[in-house]
């Protein structure tokens, strides 16, 4: 985010010089000593004024940064009373102390009450200017960063909705099915009909409202077999899946469908090469083992596992892992540990 001008180093250095100079001229005007400018323009008094302006500027900036953080969107003037009063009090203290110190050390006597009032009035005016300036920029910056954050959140929400929508529709599979359907309707109507039924069943499952977050592996397996049947009707797809799990175990809804599809898509399709996927389990994981040659450049598996892992992180400390040794691949899906019988 761009730093506002009032917070930039150059402004913070130049501003006290100008303010100090203005304060000095104002004081000379008060005391009717403007001709002093001609005889001795740069002197210790001017330097003291610049230092005073710097101290007041920085203290006001500090107070605003520390005390106005809690100002909410429902902006109210009363919320400003405390930081303003603090800034003014600090300004009075700094001015009085610096001037008294200067008078005693340089001139050898304490300043008069009327002189102190003059000094304080001038620097209180500049404090008010600083306060208004810093507060305006501070609130503007706060509002800007809040808007940016909220826009970023909205962007992420929309992206996330889009990814989910795209995953649900699965356009690649949809168009592949349609293409196969076009071919099959001319060759084998019965197969085309079967393909359409499988497609309808799979899409009904994928697109149905998600009332349950988790599902039993066995229940999802019915749809896995239908998905595999769908793939079998596509050209060069030779796939077989086998489930060797008898226990009642739970997975995030859609996990097996996504992983099986990712496996099929991440291996090189060949008419002579069967992709055999064996599903087993150990104590903590569901294991999917398959032997196949992976595509040289393919992000399908990684992307799908990443999407699924964002769901698994909600329910488990473990995530889905993919390991490869040569042509042997293994995917480990953590088994969800449910508290008692909650399903």
């Amino acid at each position, binding site marked *: 985010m761009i730093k506002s001008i009032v917070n930039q180093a150059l402004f913070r250095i130049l501003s006290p010089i100008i303010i100090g100079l203005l304060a000095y001229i104002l004081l000379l005007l008060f005391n009717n000593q403007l001709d002093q400018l001609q005889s001795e323009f740069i002197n210790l008094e001017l330097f003291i004024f610049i230092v005073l302006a710097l101290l007041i500027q920085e203290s006001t900036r500090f107070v605003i940064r520390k005390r106005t953080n809690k100002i*909410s*969107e*429902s902006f109210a003037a009363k919320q400003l009373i405390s930081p303003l009063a603090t800034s003014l009090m600090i300004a009075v203290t700094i001015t009085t102390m610096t001037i008294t110190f200067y008078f005693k050390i340089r001139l050898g006597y304490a300043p008069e009450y009327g002189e102190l009032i003059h000094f304080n009035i001038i620097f209180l005016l500049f404090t008010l200017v600083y306060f208004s300036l810093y507060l305006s920029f501070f609130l503007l910056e706060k509002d800007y960063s809040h808007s940016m954050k909220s826009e*970023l*959140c*909205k962007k*992420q*929400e929309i*992206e*996330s*909705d889009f990814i*989910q929508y795209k995953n649900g529709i699965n356009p690649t599979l949809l168009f592949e099915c349609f293409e196969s359907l076009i071919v099959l309707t001319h060759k084998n109507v019965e197969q085309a*009909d*079967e393909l*359409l*039924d499988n497609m*309808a*069943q799979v899409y*009904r499952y994928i697109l*149905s*409202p*998600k*009332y349950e*977050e*988790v599902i039993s592996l066995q229940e999802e397996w019915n749809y896995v077999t239908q998905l595999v049947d769908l793939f079998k009707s596509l050209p060069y797809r030779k796939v077989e899946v086998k489930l060797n799990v008898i226990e009642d175990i739970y997975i*995030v809804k859609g996990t097996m469908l996504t992983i099986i599809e990712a496996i099929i898509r991440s291996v090189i399709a060949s008419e002579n090469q069967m992709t055999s996927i064996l599903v087993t389990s150990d104590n903590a994981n569901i294991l999917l083992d398959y032997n196949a040659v992976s595509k040289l450049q393919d992000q399908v598996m990684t992307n799908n596992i990443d999407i699924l892992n*964002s*769901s698994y*992180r*909600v*329910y*488990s*400390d473990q995530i889905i892992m993919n390991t490869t040794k040569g042509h042997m691949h293994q995917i480990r899906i953590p088994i*969800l*540990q*449910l*508290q008692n019988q*909650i399903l």
Partner: protein
Amino acid sequence: MNVIIIEDELPAIKKLTDYLHKYDASIKIIHTCESIEIAVRTLLNLEKPVDLIFMDIQLSDGLSFEIIEQVDIDNPIIFTTAYDEYAIDAFKLNSIDYILKPISYTALSSSLKKYKRLSKPQTNIIKSAFHKIREKRYKDRFLVKLGNKINTIPINEVALIYAEGRTVYLITSHGQKFIIDYKIEQLSEILDPSIFNRINRSSIIHIKAIKEIIVYSNSRLRIDTIISIEKELIVSREKVNDFKTWLEGDL
């Protein structure tokens, strides 16, 4: 075997007829009825004995249960349905025979094999199943991670659900905060709209979580909740009217 098909979609009638003939060429489709009205008229004026009826649950003019209410049917019925799993559960629970659409030959042949064992339809049982179908289903609990296990949060304990970027949080009425695996968009479809309201793009609130409503800048409303939350809950300008109607209990 004489069969009646009560179905309002012509492709489905054709498919069912083809599958029935494929299963047994001697099966005769004596009537096809496309609406409740036609079905009632047909069943009241039957000239031939009927062995089996295939009945679509949702017809163009209503639920086919109205046919059973108007006509005393003695023959076995196999329902066909495109309803979701929830409706299917109602049928399974009451042992009512059904085939899920799109009808597959395997499902049809397995139903036909047992059709002779099907008893006379019991109106009360079917009524309760249809009653469940009529009810709109809403989510009744959330699964959340508690320690290293998954636990449930009943829906009446949910005070607020809000999204922050890609993450969606659930706040309970006790002030506990959990991450859930849903999108706000999905939730607005499956939460009961009489108790939950989507007050803006990223927040859904339970009616009981509202403590105070304050008029806010730019024709918006700010909600103070019974639990303390870091987030400022603002009813967006375009949702204010719906929100007021919801509070009045008209949604």
